[in-house]
């Protein structure tokens, strides 16, 4: 049952979006989030969503995947929308007045805009993780943060930790499965009983798991030392990320789209 857990939410493919340089993709995703807040008028938001829809189409990500990524944040969206609905006051008479709560036209507008914006934000960042494998993303983060290394920020160490974590997640899941089966064979009841009982039953699973993880860490450290690991200085890479012509074209197209969206906000602030 633990085997079904997918790591990250990578959706492999070979589209333009998939092949786009991960560093640029990451930066553009951040820019897109900023854009969602900068171009906050309905027109800007509509254009932003249109842009995202086109990107999803190009990446050939099925529509139901968007639904899947939005589902967990739906309560938060509803909560913020409801708060906005009741607490934003506007000019003129309220639309509805009930006891101490009143809803203004302004509030409805804000609530809808906020909900749509948050959903676009999640869908936008999901596109990044759908089209970029965690390994490539780690590489991109390492390269983007490299300048911070001059300020003694441990960039290489962080990236190494992330990639080792990714490497060992499947191994540890497999091990958890084994330990759970071993405890079940000894009569442990992991799937039945009250909540508190089930949590208590996990203790004999977690303790061996932790001990084994420490042992693994020890051995891995030794194996790394044997292969001359000595931190990030003087290290070269087998695969180096390089921007090619296509990447620059993609980048230019995205920047142009973002500029149009931003301009729409400045030219038609009231729409």
């Amino acid at each position, binding site marked *: 049952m633990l085997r079904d857990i997918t790591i990250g939410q990578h959706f492999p493919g070979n589209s333009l979006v998939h092949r786009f340089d991960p560093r640029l993709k990451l930066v553009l995703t951040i820019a897109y989030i900023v854009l969602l807040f900068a171009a906050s008028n309905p027109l800007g938001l509509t254009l932003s969503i249109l842009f995202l829809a086109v990107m999803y189409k190009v990446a050939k990500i099925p529509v139901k995947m968007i639904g899947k990524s939005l589902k967990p944040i739906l309560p938060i969206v509803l909560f913020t929308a409801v708060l906005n609905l009741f607490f934003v006051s506007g000019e003129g008479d309220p639309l509805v007045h009930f006891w101490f709560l009143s809803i203004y036209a302004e509030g409805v507008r804000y609530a809808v805009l906020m909900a749509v914006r948050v959903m676009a934000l999640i869908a936008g960042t999901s596109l990044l993780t759908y089209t970029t494998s965690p*390994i490539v993303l780690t590489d991109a983060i390492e390269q983007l943060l490299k300048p911070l290394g001059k300020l003694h920020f441990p960039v290489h160490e962080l990236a190494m930790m992330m*990639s*080792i974590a*990714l*490497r060992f997640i*499947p*191994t540890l899941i*497999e091990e958890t499965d084994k330990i759970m089966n071993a405890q079940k064979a000894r009569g442990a009841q992991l799937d039945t009983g009250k909540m508190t009982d089930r949590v208590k039953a996990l203790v004999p699973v977690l303790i061996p798991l932790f001990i084994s993880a420490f042992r*693994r860490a020890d*051995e*891995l450290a*030794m*194996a*790394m*030392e*044997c*292969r*001359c*690991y*000595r931190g990030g200085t*003087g*290290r*070269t*890479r*087998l*695969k*180096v990320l390089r921007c090619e012509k296509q990447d620059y074209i993609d980048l230019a197209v995205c920047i142009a789209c973002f500029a149009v969206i931003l301009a729409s906000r400045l030219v038609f602030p009231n729409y």
Partner: protein
Amino acid sequence: MSDTILTAENLKFRYDAEQPVYALDGVSAQIKRGEFVAVLGANGCGKSTLAKHFNAILLPESGKVYVEGMDTADEDKLYDIRQTVGMVFQNPDNQIVATVVEEDVAFALENLGVPQDEMRRRVDDSMKMAGIYEYRERAPHNLSGGQKQRVAIAGVVAMRPDCLILDEATAMLDPRGREQVMQTIHYLNRNMGITVVSITHYMEEAAQADRVLVMSKGHVVMEGTPKEVFSQTEKVRSLHLDVPQAAELRDELVKAGIPMPEGIIDTGACAQALYELLQ
């Protein structure tokens, strides 16, 4: 260049300086260039400890260890020593660092700062040698134990070491995986001239070696060709070790009064002797 690649001189080591128990208690051994040496011994006899001294993972308490004439206690030579002596451990899962096979094979070269195009070449070469080239883009956790262990071997071989130390590298594998790994090791030993020191529990593996060292309680107690060592079945058993099945069979037959020639340790030779006897 001298004949010997690894030398241990009166090596003493203990894990806990407050305890009088020595894991290695005066070990002297020499490994010749190009040799295939098997190290045998019951659990806790110090064979893994000895292996870890050969690439400066552990440093001797007293005595000396030389790798190609370099003293392992010399910190300036540490990375030269580790490049000369590659080490493969028991659990393949715990020595694979990267999430893609070819990137793991490249790990050592990345650490050594090898330029990218040369790295590509060396990675491809060592993956082909270990017979894992076709899995180069797979994730290690999707491979079988034998395949994973060959990934680990390729990762070490990419450093172009002169010597390979296998610390029970086949102990966790199924028979087929063990077969694949041993084939790879023998290929590297014969065709690439890589010296191999294999610590093992499998007598059949040891029988294929050029030389066997048997350790007990921190000492080297027997040394010689597999024939010389395994012919002394009584002594080998007294050290809590098995002998190869062929040697055991020969022993039992001699005890039963059937004349069998000495020095039979592998199945082929045993079958031949029986065939001749029956004619």
